[in-house]
Each structure stands twice: as C-alpha cells, then as structure tokens.
C-alpha cells in the first residue's frame, strides 16, 4: 500500500466499518426478526427489494464491495499487529485481540453465509427453509451462533474504536462511557440475533 494514501486508506477502512457495513448489519438483523414473526410481511419486503430496478448494482456498490475492501484490508491490518495479552492482561488489550479474531471469523462466516443463502437466488421462503435445516444440525447451530456473535462484537467494538479514530471520544471518561454504549449495542443486537435463531429452531 502506497505511503501517500496510507492515512486515507485506513480512514476509509474505518468509515466503511460503520457506513455502510455496520448499518447494514443492524438492518439485516432487525429484518430477520420479521422473517420469523410474520413470514408474509418478510416475503413482501424481500420481493420488493429484489424487484427494485438496479438492486444488483446497489448490492454490489453499497454492500459487497465495501465488505470486500474492509475484509481484505482488515487482513493486512491483522498481519501488522501482534499478540501480548498474556503479558499485558488488560481488558482493552483482550478486546484488541478479539477484534482481530472476530474479524477473521466474520469473514469466513459471511463468505459461507452469502455463498449458501444469497448467490443461488432462491425464493425468500426457500432460503428460510434452507437456513432452518442448517441450524437444526448441531454444527450449523454452533457455526451460526459463533458467526453472528463475532460479527456483532466486531461491529460494536469497532464502533468504540471508530469514535476514537474520528476524534470524537478523546478523554478516558468519554471512552469509558462509549464502552458502555457499545456494550449496549452488542447486547441488544445479540439478543435480536439469538431470538431469531431460537424462533427458527422452534
């Protein structure tokens, strides 16, 4: 990566994590609740979205390319980092390590998730059935719980770092408050995701 664009590339990487990727994650998890609560409305929303002209271009530019860039550059960031959590056992140092681990898990999870549920272009109902069958296997359930929670942790902790990267939370007090806020985001989104999974199993 050229030194001239280093700062911009890093900042774009940070920005994409929230906009659009983080926002998309929150939207996606919220919409899933609808799928299990009222399948008809969910089907309608999905069909409306799929029927929108140019949806493929929107998905490519707003979702796929940002995730691809964030993932590939993220791997470069992981390579440049180190691990010293056993010597320096501070919570923030563990979060630093977890951010990298969950990033890699999320990449594997999302790649599998998109490949199996989106690429083949089946109907909304067929997708839900395929997913239900997969999470009813013990491996499928663990894979989804770990994958979804990793993605949510990566987003919530990334949001905490985002606030520092963009110079919003500067002092230790504001960073502590943002830790509580981001923990709240993690808990709420996790509850939504786990509830959806539980309803799929029911």
């Amino acid at each position, binding site marked *: 990566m050229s030194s001239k664009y280093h700062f911009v590339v*890093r900042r774009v990487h940070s920005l994409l994590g929230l906009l659009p990727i983080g926002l998309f994650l929150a939207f996606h998890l919220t919409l899933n609740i609808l799928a299990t609560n009222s399948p008809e409305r969910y089907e309608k929303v999905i069909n409306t979205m799929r029927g929108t002209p140019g949806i493929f271009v929107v998905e490519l530019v707003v979702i796929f390319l940002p995730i691809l860039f964030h993932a590939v550059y993220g791997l470069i960031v992981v390579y440049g980092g180190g*691990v010293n959590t056993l010597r320096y056992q501070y919570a923030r140092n563990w979060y630093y390590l977890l951010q990298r681990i969950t990033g890699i898990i999320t990449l594997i999870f999302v790649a599998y998730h998109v490949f199996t549920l989106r690429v083949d272009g089946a109907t909304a109902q067929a997708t839900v059935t395929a997913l239900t069958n997969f999470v009813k296997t013990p491996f499928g359930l663990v894979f989804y719980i770990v994958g979804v929670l990793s993605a949510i942790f990566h987003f919530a902790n990334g949001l905490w770092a985002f606030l520092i990267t963009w110079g919003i939370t500067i002092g230790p007090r504001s960073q502590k408050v943002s830790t509580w806020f981001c923990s709240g985001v993690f808990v709420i989104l996790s509850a939504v995701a786990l509830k959806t999974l539980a309803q799929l199993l029911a």
Partner: protein
Amino acid sequence: MSNVIELRIKRQDGPGQPARWESFKIPYRPKLNVISVLMEIQQNPVNAEGNRTTPVVWECNCLEEVCGACSMNINGQARQACTALIDQLKQPIVLEPLRKFPLVRDLMVDRTVMFDSLKKVRAWIPIDGTYDLGPGPRMAEAKRQWAYELSKCMTCGCCAESCPQFNSRSKFIGPAAISQVRLFNAHPTGEMNKHERLEVLLEEGGISDCGNAQNCVRACPKAIPLTTSLADLNRDANKFAVDRWLRK
C-alpha cells in the same frame, strides 16, 4: 522474608548469539532495587550453581526514573530497573531485555529507533534565526498544566514495548513520538510548525496505525495520558487531512 534474593536473568552475549537463562542468589538486604542487585552480580559474578560467569550487562544513568536508560522487562512488565524495588517484587525476579528493540548484550538494548521517531515527527521548536526573533507568544496557564504532563516523557520505550502494533511487521512509530507532536503543537511557538508534524503523522507508521489496545497508557511509568494524546491528534490529523485536500 527469605535471606536471599533470587533472580532469573535472560543472558545473550550479543546480537545473533543464542539466549540462555541464568539464575543468581544474592544475600538479602532491605531497600534494594534491581540496579543495586545487578551491581552485586557485577562485583561477584557467580551464578546460583556457584559457577563463575560473566557480569550481567545493563544500562543505567539517572537512578531516579527520569532518563529511561534502565528500561527492561521485570517479571514480564516493561519498567525502569531503578524504581523496581526488590521488597515489592515477586521472586524469583525475572529480568529480560526489552523485546522490541535490537539487543546489544544481556539486558542492554539499542533504543535508537525511539529517537529517530522524535526526529521524524520534528519534536522540537525551531527558534533559530539570523537575528533575535524576540519573545514568543504567551502560553495559557491551563494549557501549560496539561502540556507539562506530556513533557515528562523520557523516551524510555515502555509504551512501544507494550504496544502490539509496534513490531517488526509494522512501521508504527509508537505512542511516545506521537504524544510529543501534541506537546509541541500545543506550544504557542511550536504551533507555527504544526502542519509539518501532522504531515508526518499521516504517513505509514503514523497515527492511523494505532490499534487502540491502550496498553501504552498503563505501561507508561510517568503516567502520561498517551491515549488522550492519540485521540486528540486523531481529531487534528483528520481536520488537517481534509483541509489540505480541499485546498489542493
């Protein structure tokens, strides 16, 4: 309290030489520090097995935690040997050189990279001219008070040692030099060259390579608010980058 002080020291005769562990037992006296124990070994270089060995090499200067020369890993944590009091340490006391800097011998490392980084970010105030430039602008007292805390940095390297982003695979210059940018940018005369320092921070190895692990602020023996400096300069660097781009 036992009547001996037990030490385990990581020895290495030079760069590229094999490392080995050597144990030492020193007669107990109250109120010793790691430096005075190393001096005992220097006077009588006999290891715990009773064999004669080479004296352990280390570096020290001020003996009052203001120079940073005696930084080493003591029981796994980077700190100064002069303020590491034997009576407060768990035994056997494990001494290792800092890992992130090129080794010279035993506990002595070459911290030149720390000083190179200070040069890179232009951590000084240019006041030389061909004529008397006169007095500079006054500094607000409230600002002087927090800036003084940043001036306590002794470039010891503990922050870099504890930082997971500071390693051989990354060009990150570490928290110390970045915090010095905040210090010199806060100074009313130093502020006149603010853009030169921020420009360097935008490069690879600069502020965007911080990973927010926040070990630095805890490892710093002078309690410098390093993470506050980093976040504050994030704000400045972002503003500066956008401004510079829009003026092109």
